C-alpha cells in the first residue's frame, strides 16, 4: 500500500515562510527542515520518521505549544481512573483463574485456604467492576456542549470493555461452578475419584449391610454433611456474584453499541448530531418566541407600572397632607 510523506516538504515551506514573515527572528533549530528527498516513497512499515511529538520540537515553538495544550477537563481523570480499575480487575482475574485451578485439583490438605483466597479475589473483582460501573454512569452528565459528544463516546468505549470483562468473569465463574458441582456429585456417586476431603465412596459401606448406623458411619455422615453445607455455601456465593454481574450487564447493555446496526455507522452519527443540533436550535428559537409572547412578561410589566403609580400616589399624599 503506497503512501507518501509530505511532511519534510511542508516543514521546509513553513520555515521559509516564517522567515519571510518575521525576518528579525533567529533561525530556530531544525525540527524537520532537513534537506531530505522531496518525494519519499513509504514502505509497508511505518513511514512517520519525521513525526515528532510536540514536546521535543524546537524550544520557541514549545512555549507557544504549552499555551495550546491546556489542561484536560476533569472527566478525563474519571475515565482514566475507570480504565485503571479495569486493568487491575483483569490482573486479578488472571490470579483468580489460577486459584480456581488450584482449588479444583485434588489435594491432601484442607482446601480452606484456597476457598478463602477465591472468595477474597471474587469479592475484590466484583467490587472493582461495580465501582467502575457506577463511575461510568456518572460520566455522562448534563451540559450539551461539543465536549459531551466526546464524553459519550468515551463512555461507550469503556462500557464495551467493561461488559466484555464482566462476561469473561461470569464465564470463568460459571465454569468453576459447574466443575464444583461435578465434584460434589462425584462424591455422592459411585465412582472412585479422590475428592478434597479424601472420604471414600459409599460403595464400601454397602458391603457392611448394617441395619443401624455404626460409629464410623455416623462420623462419615457428619463429615459429608459439613462438606455438603460448605459446598452449598460456596455455590450460593458464586451464584450471587453471577447475579450481580447480570445486573451490571443489563445496565451496560444500554450504553454499548450493537455492531453492524445503523447506529454503528459513522455517517449516521454525524447526521444525527447535525440534526439534533439543528433541532435544538429550533427549539431554542421557539422557546424564545413563546417566552417573549408569554403572559409572564406582560404581568411583570403591568405590576412594575402599578408599583410606580403607587409610589407616585404615596409621594403626592405625603405632599398634600
Amino acid at each position, binding site marked *: 500500500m503506497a503512501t507518501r510523506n509530505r511532511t519534510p516538504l511542508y516543514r521546509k515551506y513553513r520555515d521559509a515562510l516564517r522567515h519571510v514573515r518575521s525576518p528579525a527572528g533567529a533561525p530556530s533549530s531544525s525540527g524537520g527542515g532537513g534537506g531530505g528527498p522531496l518525494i519519499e516513497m513509504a514502505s509497508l512499515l511505518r513511514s512517520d520518521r*519525521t513525526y515528532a511529538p510536540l514536546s521535543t520540537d524546537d524550544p520557541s515553538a514549545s512555549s507557544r505549544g504549552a499555551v495550546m495544550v491546556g489542561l484536560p477537563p476533569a472527566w478525563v481523570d474519571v475515565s482514566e481512573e475507570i480504565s485503571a480499575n479495569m486493568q487491575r480487575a483483569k490482573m486479578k482475574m488472571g490470579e483468580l483463574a489460577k486459584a480456581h485451578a488450584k482449588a479444583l485439583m485434588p489435594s491432601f490438605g484442607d482446601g480452606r485456604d484456597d476457598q478463602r483466597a477465591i472468595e477474597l479475589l471474587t469479592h475484590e473483582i466484583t467490587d472493582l467492576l461495580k465501582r467502575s460501573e457506577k463511575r461510568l454512569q456518572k460520566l455522562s452528565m448534563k451540559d450539551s456542549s461539543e465536549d459531551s*459528544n466526546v464524553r459519550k463516546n468515551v463512555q461507550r468505549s469503556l462500557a464495551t470493555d467493561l461488559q466484555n470483562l464482566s462476561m469473561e468473569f461470569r464465564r470463568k465463574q460459571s465454569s468453576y461452578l459447574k466443575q464444583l458441582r461435578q465434584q460434589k456429585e462425584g462424591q455422592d456417586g459411585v465412582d472412585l475419584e479422590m475428592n478434597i476431603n479424601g472420604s471414600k465412596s459409599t460403595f464400601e459401606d454397602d458391603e457392611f449391610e448394617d441395619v443401624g448406623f455404626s460409629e464410623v458411619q455416623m462420623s462419615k455422615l457428619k463429615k459429608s454433611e459439613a462438606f455438603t453445607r460448605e459446598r452449598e455455601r460456596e455455590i450460593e456465593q458464586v451464584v450471587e456474584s453471577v447475579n450481580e454481574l*447480570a445486573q451490571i450487564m443489563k445496565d451496560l447493555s444500554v450504553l454499548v453499541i450493537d455492531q453492524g446496526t445503523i447506529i454503528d455507522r459513522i455517517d449516521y452519527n454525524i447526521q444525527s448530531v447535525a440534526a439534533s443540533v439543528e433541532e435544538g436550535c429550533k427549539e431554542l428559537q421557539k422557546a424564545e418566541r413563546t417566552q417573549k409572547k408569554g403572559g409572564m412578561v406582560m404581568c411583570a410589566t403591568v405590576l412594575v407600572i402599578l408599583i410606580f403609580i403607587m409610589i407616585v400616589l404615596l409621594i403626592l399624599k405625603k405632599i398634600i397632607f
Partner: protein
Amino acid sequence: MVLILLVRDYIDRMLHDILGMKVLVLDPQTVGMLSVVYSQSDLLKKEVFLVETMDNASSSRESMAHLKAVYFLRPSADNVQKLRRHLAMPRFAEYHLFFSNILKIQQIQILADSDEQEVVQQVQEFYADFCAIDSYHFTLNIQNNHMYMLPTVVDPPGMRSFCDRAVDGIASVFLALKRRPVIRYQRTSDVAKKIAQETARLMYEQESGLFDFRRTENSSLLLVIDRRDDPVTPLLNQWTYQAMVHELIGIENNKVDLRGYANVPKDQQEVVLSSVQDDFFRANMFENFGDLGMNIKRMVDDFQHLSKSSLNLQSIGDMAKFVSNYPEYRKTHGNVTKHVALVSEMSRIVEERRLMLVSQTEQELACTSGQAAAFEAVTSLLNNESVSDIDRLRLVMLYALRYEKESPVQLMQLFNKLASSSAKYKSGLVQFLLKQAGVDKRTGDLYGNRDLLNIARNMARGLKGVENVYTQHQPLIVQTMEGIVKGRLRDVDYPLVGNHFQQGRPQDVVIFIVGGTTYEEARSVALYNAANPGVRFFLGGSVVLNSKRFLEDLGEAHRISKSSTTI
C-alpha cells in the same frame, strides 16, 4: 474483502501511531468512504472520541486542547481553503493531516503559510480515494454523473471535474494495490478515451516516481469502458438479493433507507447491508429471490426455536446462560428483523407493480429474439393498466434497443402509445437513448448476434432452455472478462494507450465503467473471481446505477442537450 481491507489498513495506520484522545475531521466525501469500511465502535477502539465534518468544525468556537486532530480530506481547493481557517485559529492540540490523493505543491505552500502556530505535525498522502462497497466493487459517487453522455463543449468545467474525479479515483485504486497498469479503453467512447489518456499521463509522466513499483511477473490492466456500451443491464429489473434491494428500494453506501415505507418497524427505518459484518447477507447477497425466501424462512425458524428455548428458564444455570448470551441474542434478533422487513417490503412492491409479469418480458427482450412476439408482448403490457409508467418506459426502451432497425413502423407505434399513456414522459427520451447507445454506437456484442461464435452459443442456450427465466440475462461484462482472460480482446475495439504492450495474461484487472456500474455486474465479477482464482477482477464506476438513476441521468442529459441545441 480485498478493497475493503486496503482502505481499512490505511485508516488503521493513520490512527495507530497517534496516542491519546483524538478527533477525526472529515469532509462530506471522505465520510462516505470511511463509513463503508470502518464502524463507530472500531473508531472508539482506536480512541477516536469525536468525529466532525469540516463545516461544523469551523463553526464551533470551543477549544478542545486535550484532543489531537486527525484530518482525512480530499485534496480539493475547497478543503484547502477551509483548512486554512482551521489552522489560523487552532482548536486542538496537534494537527495531523492526511489527504486521500496527490497534493499539488501550491496547496502545500498555502497550508504552510497559514500554519502560523505550527500545530501541524505531519502531512501525508494516504491513497484511499474511493468507496470500497464490496470486496471487488468500488464506486466514486460522482454527483454530476450525467456529464458523460454530453459532448465536452456543452459544459467544459463540469466535464473537467468529472474526468478529474475519475482519474483521481482510478489512480488511488492502483496506488493502494501498488500496481501500474497497462491501459486500454473503448474506442468508440470519447469520455473513456480522455480518462484513459489522462490516467496514463499521470501514471507514466507526471508522477512516474510515485507509481514506479516493482515490476511483477504479470502486468495489471486497466480497462475504461462506457456505460452506453451496455445500456440493457441498468434497465432490467433484478432478482438477486443485493441487486434487487438497490433496484426496488435503493442502497447508498451500503445503507438502505426505509423511512418512506409503511409497515416498517421503528428501529428498522435505516438499515445496513454490509457483506463484512452481516453473515447472512454475505451468504445470500447473490441468491435469487426464491432461494432467498427459503433461507430467510430457515433463519426465522432457527431464531424462533432459539427464543422459545430461552423462554422456559428452569434453573439459575439457565438464567445465567441466557444473560451471558443476551448480546448475541439481541444481535440475531435485530438481524432477522432487518432481513424480514426488507424482503416483505420487496414482495409488496413486486406485487404492486406486477413485476413478475413485466420482468419476464424484459428478460425475453434482452435475451431471446423474435421481433413479432416481442412486439405483441410489449403492446399488451402497455395496455395493461396496472403497469407503472417507469416500467412501461423501460419496456419500450428495451424493445427499441433490440429491434431498433427492424420494423420502424411498429417502433413508432410504441413511442406514440408511450407518449399518450404516460403524462410525465418527456418525448424524445427513447430516441435520445438510441442516439447515445444505439447499435451504431456500441462496440461490444450486446445481444450476441454479431459474432458467429456468440450466435452459436445463443442457439445452444435456447435449445437447452434456461434454469430461471428471471435471471437468464448475463451482463456484457462477462464476455469482456472472458475476452481479457483468453486474450481475445480485440485491439481494434479496445486499443492500448500510447506505446504500452500487454505481456501475457494480466493478474489484476480493474474495469472502470464511465457512467456507473450495477450490482448485477458486481455479482458477475464476484462470481467470476470465485470460479477463476488465476485472475482478479475489480469493478468500479462513477456511481452505482439502478434503473431509476440511469433514467434520471438520461433525462438530465436529454434536457441539457435539448436546451443547448436550441441556443
